């Protein structure tokens, strides 16, 4: 049986890589490597996962320098010459080993007013919204975000300007301003026009490049830039 050389970050913000030998298997994800290490080699290794099928967004880590969802990343896809280096996600603080504190990431969603504001909360029936309406299509394109933080980790502006709202939060805001049922479009725009808002994005597109579910936050953010620009010029902010 061949083995893989797996380097894993141990510690918190301060730490080091430790190397482990993990037997290679035909069906093996990066999450499986980490699990093997915790179960068989070092019981104190900390990492996070829940669903194991790419819906919860808990398991993202940096794999050979790239942020990825580890439960859906086959080792063969990332191993280079039998080596895999696994680190926690960038741009978040490390709690322990591979687990980061994701609360600041979700705080940003709130800062971006990334939540539905009902226009008619007491309505007794479900609104009619044709799926082919252009705005609905825009919203649908960004709605399946799993909140994994991969885009947040990939974005250099988040790194350079820690208060920047970041791609996931802005993407959520974009889905809301395109939601015909939302009652506070201007409120969402105001939130993302604040000082570290959408205009801080330089269209690096690392977010879109790495999003595991194929969302394109760059597209959403540029949409927001246009709406904010119009609203600002018209004095509506």
């Amino acid at each position, binding site marked *: 049986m061949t083995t893989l050389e797996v380097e894993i970050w141990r510690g918190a913000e301060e730490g080091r890589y430790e190397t482990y030998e993990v037997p290679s298997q035909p069906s093996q994800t990066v999450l499986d490597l980490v699990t093997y290490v915790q179960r068989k080699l070092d019981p*104190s290794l900390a990492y996070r996962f829940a669903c*194991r099928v790419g819906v*919860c967004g808990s398991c993202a880590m940096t794999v050979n320098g790239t942020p990825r969802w580890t*439960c859906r990343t086959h080792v063969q896809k990332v191993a280079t010459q039998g080596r895999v280096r696994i680190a926690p996600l960038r741009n978040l603080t490390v709690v322990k080993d591979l687990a980061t504190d994701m609360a600041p990431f979700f705080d940003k969603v709130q800062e971006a007013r990334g939540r539905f504001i009902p226009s008619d909360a007491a309505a007794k029936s479900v609104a009619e919204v044709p799926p082919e309406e252009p705005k609905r299509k825009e919203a649908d394109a960004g709605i*399946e*975000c799993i909140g994994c933080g991969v885009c947040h980790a990939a974005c250099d502006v988040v790194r350079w300007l820690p208060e920047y709202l970041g791609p996931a939060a802005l993407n959520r805001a974009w889905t809301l301003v395109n939601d015909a049922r939302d009652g506070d479009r201007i409120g969402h725009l105001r939130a993302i026009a604040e000082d570290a808002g959408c205009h801080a994005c330089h269209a690096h597109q690392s977010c879109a490049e790495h999003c595991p579910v194929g969302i394109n936050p760059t597209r959403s953010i540029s949409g927001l830039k246009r709406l904010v620009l119009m609203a600002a010029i018209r004095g509506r902010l």
Partner: protein
Amino acid sequence: MSGIERHETDLLILGSGGAGLLAALHADDKDPSLKITIAVKGLLGKSGCTRMVQGGYNVALAPGDSLQRHFMDTIEGGKWLNHQELAWRLVEGAVERIIQLENRWGCFFDRNPDGKLHFKAFAGQTVDRTVHKGDLTGIEIINRLAEQVWARGIRRLEEHRALALIPARDGERLSGVVLLDVRTGEFRFIAAKAVLLATGGGPTMYLYHTPSGDKSCDGLAMALRAGLKLRDMEMVQFHPTGLIAGKDTRITGTIIEEGLRGAGGHILDGSGERFMHRYDPRNERATRDIVSRGMYDQMRAGKTGPNGGVFITMKHLDPAMVRRQFKGMVTRCADVGFDLVGGDVEVVPTAHYMMGGVVFDLGCRTSLPGLFAAGEDTGGVHGANRLGGNGVANSTVYGGIAGETMAAFVKSGGGIVAPDEAAIEAAVADALRPFSRKPGDLNDLRERLYRLMWDDVGIVRDEAGLTRGQKALDELATELGEAGLPDTTRAFNLTWADWLSLDSLILTSRAIAAAALKRDDSRGAHYRSDFPETGSLERSENTVVTLKENRIAVTTEPVAFTRVRPGQTLS
């Protein structure tokens, strides 16, 4: 008095699935002055199974549908074991809930081209009534609920694992909960005026299982230890098609979508032959339980693929159709190395859902004052089988109800009461026990538990197997008690978490085995090869399990046919 950190809150909600989050929102709506705390084992909104819901949400809103029909499908599906009032409240509540999910919380479900809700077909239903968001319905629901919770002043205790329900000093009611802060390894006691158990059951004690990794029946184990009754614990639903790719990958057990069979997928044995025609004229399109048993039969006869499963294949169908219609499934398989379009994918039946759970009433009250329950932790709504689409309806409908009843309970005088200090001490001591023992082989214990539940308390059961299983479970319980952990660090110690999970799983498994032995007929998810017939529906009984002095006791109670009797229907 135990020296652990203590806090007080009005409402303490355990779990952040559909049940937990809606309870928090409804309680907060009802009385914004309440101090609400959600404690969850994983991250808020990112753990549990509601998020994993694929198929969708059953609601009687489609033209031609009615509450009565949804109710009757639920009762027929449940083989007359359902608590009929709970089932009625479910179908009624689902309508209310879907409308609120859309209009108040912002979920958006798929529409027809004309803009009206789309309803899809789901097995076992006489009308297309399943509302969905593609095949990622759960993400939409939980994301929307979580962002609403995040926006409010609701306190979050993420990565806090509930360990034990602590009674009041006089034992008359609940005082609070002992939790383990996973990140620091420290304990906290949270005293609350009302506590919601919404940890979501989850049959993860089987070799193959679908639920998320954070679920380990902690809620059910805590309830048993607190003296509560669990009903119909033998009812464990298996999903016929789970991926199997070896025991060292977490992919094993995860669901391959049911729609594949509906769309014409074939199931093949190890030598590539179809076999379902031998079990049911509907072939692969038979119901979950029949397909699961057919597959299991082939596996027991040794007609398996390399990993011990059978195969599902779509290769005889139009690849473009498969790619288009099952995009998510095709990429998921491809990501982990399987070709769903042109190849054979090895599959096994996989433990999916627990119909059984804590006995509760229409207001989500349990027999312990101050303790409420909702979601997959509870039993009674689904009877012997759960319809696809009724699971998330259950957690969201009853979660909301629980929030309202709890708010009312606090208002009407449910205060903070002094805890039984000895119980707190004991809970902490129990959790710390492994650190003072010689390190044991948890992997071996886990694999043995998985295997014995699969073989002896699984898809096909009989008296000999169940008795053997019970004995083995008792031994495992003893061995786990002896098995220690290296005392390295308590902070974010996943191996400690594994130990605690095994502890809950073994106890819950004992309840399942005992209830399964008690039920001497076959119905719904429960199949006894020594009693293959379904007994009299008229004289249907529920099993009730309790824990007394660490011994499992099982009794039965007749089902009350409060709305319909077998043979009748509502219209």
